């Protein structure tokens, strides 16, 4: 305990703290999961099945829900630290600031993936999609790749937004333009997968997701210290 922990160990400790809080209260997860089901239901009842085939609509619905449910979780990430100025404790801890970011981002990633575990089967059920094992695995891969990029950018903007006058109102304004390439690529890959097209087309879109992750995870990790120094 006398040695300050390394970046990975510190990040893991912070992620575990956030996940423990979430596991004990389940407040944010339940609201995001219920939101996903509600949103899928609303899309279902605004949809005319005679005009648009469900297979054409489902990917869009899935990734729109993903975006907004993600925002719900991300907003909470840093606002939870405002109570009793808990963020000050994190920032004076003898760990690198990058570790704080990575820990927060990892907890958010688990959160977003957890919500997707509810959202994807809901959409599959409501839109009557039949997915084989291969398609399910491909969608799981797309979801992980898309979530990493979304969470990297969203965690950074969440850290910034809570310190502004607009607080959580600002997060969508900042983050949504950054979600555009992620959601576009994920939705297009999903379209190809659920239509049973050859995987090579989906792989092209997944390359865009990989490139996004490779650029924005390091960029946001490096940018985070700039947002908190005083």
């Amino acid at each position, binding site marked *: 305990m006398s040695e300050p922990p390394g970046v990975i160990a510190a990040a893991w400790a912070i992620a575990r703290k956030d996940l423990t809080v979430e596991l004990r209260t389940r407040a944010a997860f339940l609201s995001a999961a219920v939101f996903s089901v509600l949103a899928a239901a609303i899309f279902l009842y605004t949809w005319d099945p005679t005009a648009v085939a469900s297979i054409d609509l489902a990917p869009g619905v899935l990734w729109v829900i993903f975006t907004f449910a993600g925002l719900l979780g991300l907003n909470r990430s840093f606002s939870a630290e405002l109570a009793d100025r808990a963020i000050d404790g994190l920032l004076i801890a003898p760990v690198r600031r990058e570790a704080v970011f990575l820990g927060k981002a990892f907890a958010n990633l688990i959160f977003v993936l957890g919500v997707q575990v509810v959202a994807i089967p809901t959409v599959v059920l409501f839109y009557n999609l039949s997915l084989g094992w291969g398609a399910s695995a491909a969608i799981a891969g797309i979801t992980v790749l898309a979530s990493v990029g979304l969470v990297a950018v969203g965690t950074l903007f969440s850290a910034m937004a809570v310190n502004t006058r607009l607080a959580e109102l600002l997060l969508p304004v900042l983050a949504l*333009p*950054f979600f555009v390439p992620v959601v576009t*690529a994920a939705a297009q890959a999903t379209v190809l997968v659920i239509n049973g097209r050859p995987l090579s087309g989906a792989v092209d879109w997944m390359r865009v997701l990989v490139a996004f992750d490779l650029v924005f995870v390091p960029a946001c990790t490096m940018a985070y210290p700039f*947002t908190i120094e005083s």
Partner: protein
Amino acid sequence: MGATARPDGGGSAASVTRDAALAQLDRPYGAVFWVAIAAVIATLVRIAYFTPIEASQGPAQKIFYIHVPAAVTALYLAFALMAVASVLYLWLRDPKLDRVAATSAEVGLAFTTVVLVTGPLWAKPVWGTWWSGDARLTSTLFLWLIILGYLILRQAVEDRAQRARYSAVLAILAGLLIPFIHLSVYLFRTLHPQPIVLKPSAPSLPPEMLATLLMSFASFALLFVALLRARYRLATIADGGLADGTASERDG
């Protein structure tokens, strides 16, 4: 930036500097601005009366002389300057660089708005549609939205140094994002080809048209410099509350 008064302490000094600031507010434009306005008017007159009408697109093609220079000015002058100033700010921490970034963002937003308004006006008669899923169009729209978000962010942060750091981080990430938006929309289009692939691939322009275009580029660039200068002065006054804002910032 003539500093006519400095705060030596005491209420009277503060009111003197306030007067100096107000005096600057009265004339933020200067000669460059009026020269730029004259150049833009001259360009518009040339576009309307002294440039031949294009054979296949008709008069609508004349929008091109406004649309393209506005886009080039926004992207390669305003937003390039914004990105460079933001990177330099995080390195050097000079408040002037933050003001340059904020000012270029605002002026760039104005030019991008011109691009987004003139684009559909041209597309309706020529493409037959106001809007299409074209890559360049979509990336311009999102660039415009990001700049709006940038300006909203600036409004939402009171502490000057914090505002500058947040803005710089957002501007740099936005610079990384634009290629991705372009790429995803470009891929989207090639996978689902649109019925209208009418691209204005730059044909070699006749000399009269080229002259108009070059004149337009020059006058838009001049207008950009003039607006940037005027807006920068206002930002200096707003930040410092003084004619010589940087002095008080260093002290504070």
